[in-house]
């Protein structure tokens, strides 16, 4: 399940809803990860753009991997502005036993950072500033560049 929200996430409500949705599903483990916006370098918050078609296919591929292990992933993310000390991201894995869920949440969140088509901006003086230095080029990046062509020669 992939849920996108405008603005900050209502973390207690989402975690409770997910818990209740799967309470009778016979999963022995429910391991959530909650990402909260920290106050650093004077930012007022973060802002996010999302490209939904590719995010959805990326998430669906992970859900299939989880399903193969008897597990399930739920994810919530914010669109737009999220102020400091509020949350923009929740991922959770449900599985019959804890080991699968612990390993999956780690691998899932790492790949999320590198592959999910979401762009982050710092909010400084009410302006959005693209967080290029903290961003990761996706696999296959640079193929349109002339430099890439030169490297192949």
């Amino acid at each position: 399940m992939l849920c996108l929200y405008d603005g900050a996430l209502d973390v207690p409500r989402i975690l409770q809803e997910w818990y209740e949705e799967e309470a009778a599903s016979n999963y022995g483990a429910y391991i959530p990860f909650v990402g909260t916006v920290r106050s650093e370098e004077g930012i007022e918050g973060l802002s996010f753009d999302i490209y939904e078609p590719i995010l959805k296919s990326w998430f669906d591929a992970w859900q299939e991997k989880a399903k193969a292990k008897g597990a399930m992933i739920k994810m919530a993310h914010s669109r737009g502005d999220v102020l400091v000390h509020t949350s923009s991201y929740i991922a959770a894995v449900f599985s019959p036993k804890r080991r699968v869920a612990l390993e999956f949440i780690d691998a899932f969140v790492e790949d999320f950072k590198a592959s999910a088509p979401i762009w982050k901006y710092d909010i400084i003086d009410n302006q959005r500033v693209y967080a290029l230095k903290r961003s990761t080029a996706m696999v296959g990046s640079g193929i349109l560049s002339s430099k890439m062509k030169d490297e192949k020669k």
Partner: protein
Amino acid sequence: MIRVEFLGPIQKAPLELEINNLNELAALLQKDEELSTWLENCAVAVNDTLVSSLEVALKDGDKVSLLPPVCGG
């Protein structure tokens, strides 16, 4: 006609181009100085599927997306 979209922080309006493959697109976009840095770090999707080479034919109605470096969470 091929629609080319620039996602996230790339402040550029979509283009409608008469091109037959990604090699032609690369040659066209490399002439745009504003895009030179973006081309080095953008991934490319055709009809919302990421591609890893320029050896991709395009047909009328296809959509090409440029995806700059990401940072969710």
